[in-house]
């Protein structure tokens, strides 16, 4: 069978998808280091993108994905799905409350550094754009096989930085001199 091609989400998705809008991934009782993620979407000129949709997908604090293809014997948190989705606001940002993911293995051996998978949709994007968020300063980043694949000059585009308290911020640039590293998954 032949794959169905992708099309843009367009600017008017608001009505439906918001029904499954999830900005708070970690209700009380979910284990792990709680944090707030602020992702801000920018276009090639640096202007904020106020009509985007951001999705995140992550392992729980034990490094386990809530999915049947993750068959490792690690704890699942019943209340933690690991999926978030939120529109960008007028300032281009989406905020998620979650926990820091644990490490997951690399197929050729070893472990990946803690990271969150990010999917980006917007008017003007004909395909979903995918990237990853890593945590700046995490010692595991030095041995992460994905970060090692990337030109060191561009690695900072994937590193969220912590500000006061437990808020981590990551600007995502769709283009321009600071274009974020995107992945073909």
């Amino acid at each position, binding site marked *: 069978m032949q794959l169905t*091609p992708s099309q843009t989400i367009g600017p008017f998705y608001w009505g439906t998808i918001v029904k499954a809008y999830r900005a708070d991934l970690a209700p009380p009782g979910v284990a792990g280091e709680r944090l707030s993620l602020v992702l801000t979407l920018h276009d090639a000129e640096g202007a904020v993108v106020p009509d985007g949709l951001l999705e995140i997908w992550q392992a729980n604090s034990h490094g386990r*994905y809530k999915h049947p293809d993750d068959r490792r014997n690690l704890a699942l948190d019943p209340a933690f799905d690991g999926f978030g989705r939120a529109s960008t606001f007028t300032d281009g940002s989406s905020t998620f409350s979650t926990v820091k993911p644990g490490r997951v293995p690399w197929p050729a051996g070893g472990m990946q550094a803690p990271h969150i998978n990010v999917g980006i949709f917007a008017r003007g994007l*004909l395909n979903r754009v995918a990237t990853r968020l890593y945590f700046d300063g995490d010692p595991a980043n030095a041995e992460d096989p994905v970060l090692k694949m990337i030109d060191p000059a561009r690695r900072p585009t994937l590193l969220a930085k912590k500000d006061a308290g437990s808020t981590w911020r990551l600007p995502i640039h769709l283009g321009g001199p600071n274009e974020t590293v995107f992945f073909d998954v």
Partner: protein
Amino acid sequence: MTQDLYHRPDPGTHPANLSPEYKSTGGRAPRRPAIVLPQTLSEITGPLLDSEHVGDSENDLTKQRAGEPLGERIVVHGRVLDENGKAVPQAMVEIWQCNAAGRYHHPGDQHDAPLDPNFYGGGRVRADRDGCYQFITIKPGAYPWKNHHNAWRPAHIHFSLFGPAFATRLITQMYFPNDPLLAYDPIYNAVPAGARERLQAAFDMASTRPEWALAYRFDIVLRGRNATPVES
């Protein structure tokens, strides 16, 4: 190098990110090639939305308000499959669309056409074990947009699908067969010829409901697994 669990799309399937006829791609399409990532647990898992409760009537867009919406009532149905022809059971299918006059129930849509107080334009359904889904809705109108002089979007319904993995996520648009506006639409035509035709639903006489509604069939094919699964 381990084998990918999910097929990589053939070139000629998806639109190029930078498609100059569609003006908004200019400032938003990434210019640098995406880095091809080996598929790890992060890519082969994904949200199944199994904790999401979908109400029985969320697939009927004509029953979401006090009265019935204006327009031509239609059935839109099909199957969610993967490239191997295997059903994607329990797939979440989300849709949204404008009303029969070509206006979205959205504060950003300022097209000079009436809103329909009886049409919200959003619905969702979970496919059954065979990947079958069905919506009842009204046929959306065409509407102008400012991409170029006298630009009109062909009638379309937006579809959002997750499939089994982060790697299978897809958002697309369903069009109606033989719409004369398709030839002029930069979004539809951004998809390579030979693939864009898959976005046209088929008129489905056998599924029409006599005295009640015409029917269209739209099968959706998501990325499938390679024959030999990867072990990690």
